């Protein structure tokens, strides 16, 4: 069980972004979550999970139900542009999950897009990137929108930003995505991840922490970490003797007869 026994609120929940396996369908993503003990799943609009799409798609309610049956919760739909906002809003509303509004030219544009999403009866969460200046924080906190924070561990130490953002945002911060978690964690020593997680614990943070790749360079590492790709092994299970034959004349080494 991947945290299916946990109540909806009251506890910080670790989860996975579909960006870690953008070609995986929903059922495979849910199986990965169960295998890794991850309680929530963040679905990026446009990935192959098959939940949303202009002409087809499982739909939000069915996806949420399928996730619940697997002991996982769909935590959010992540959008990176206005077109994706409009696709995600009805699906997210049906799933009971928010749309995370990221990408685009500016934070001001994200706030505007967030209000467009809420006008479509879906919850909108504005994504703050990396260091997120105090001005950025105040811009979003002046609205009635929730906040998400993308923590870019590879970019530097996140400890100081964690203290500042947690202190300012308080309960308005509900979604954190760690770019560079999972198999990349071992490479992130000294970047403040321990401090970040400790601060979240002590603050009683009860939102989600989502693991996502920092770059497509680590695609193979993620595939292994998610259990989607094993090594070659010795191959004895599927051995085919007809592929190798030494029945013809053998040539001696050095050409001697």
């Amino acid at each position: 069980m991947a945290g299916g026994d946990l109540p909806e609120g009251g506890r910080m929940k670790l989860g996975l972004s579909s960006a870690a396996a953008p070609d995986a369908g929903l059922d495979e993503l849910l199986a990965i979550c169960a295998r890794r003990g991850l309680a929530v799943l963040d679905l990026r609009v446009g990935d192959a999970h098959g939940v949303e799409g202009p002409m087809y798609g499982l739909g939000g309610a069915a996806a949420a139900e399928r996730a619940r049956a697997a002991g996982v919760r769909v935590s959010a739909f992540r959008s990176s542009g206005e077109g994706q906002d409009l696709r995600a809003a009805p699906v997210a509303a049906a799933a009971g999950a928010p749309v995370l509004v990221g990408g685009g030219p500016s934070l001001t544009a994200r706030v505007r897009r967030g209000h467009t999403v809420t006008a479509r009866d879906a919850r909108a969460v504005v994504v703050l990137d990396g260091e997120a200046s105090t001005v950025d924080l105040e811009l979003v906190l002046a609205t009635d929108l929730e906040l998400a924070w993308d923590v870019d561990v590879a970019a530097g130490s996140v400890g100081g930003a964690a203290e500042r953002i947690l202190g300012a945002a308080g309960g308005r911060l509900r979604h954190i995505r760690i770019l560079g978690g999972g198999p990349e964690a071992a490479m992130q020593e000294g970047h403040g991840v321990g401090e970040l997680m400790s601060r979240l614990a002590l603050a009683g943070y009860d939102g989600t922490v989502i693991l996502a790749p920092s770059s497509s360079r680590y695609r193979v590492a993620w595939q292994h970490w998610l259990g989607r790709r094993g090594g070659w092994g010795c191959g004895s299970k599927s051995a085919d003797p007809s592929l190798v034959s030494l029945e013809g004349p053998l040539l001696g080494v050095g050409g001697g007869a």
Partner: protein
Amino acid sequence: MSTERILDVRVIPPREKHPAIFQTFGALAAGESFVLVNDHDPKPLRYQFDYEHTGQFGWEYLEEGPTVWRVEISRKGAG
């Protein structure tokens, strides 16, 4: 914010895990606790607590695998 503090160390680089755990424990007041989440049984951590904080902590397994281990670690009150 909730009243349950969760420290999920699965995302923390290996050599930072124990320091993060002990920093969190050190910030607790008497009677407070947090729930440690890990992907294996944190027995070596228990031994380190026994050695460094003898008699000062509580340790209760809330979940024992096979995928996730959850342990409530509390700071005991004085006296």
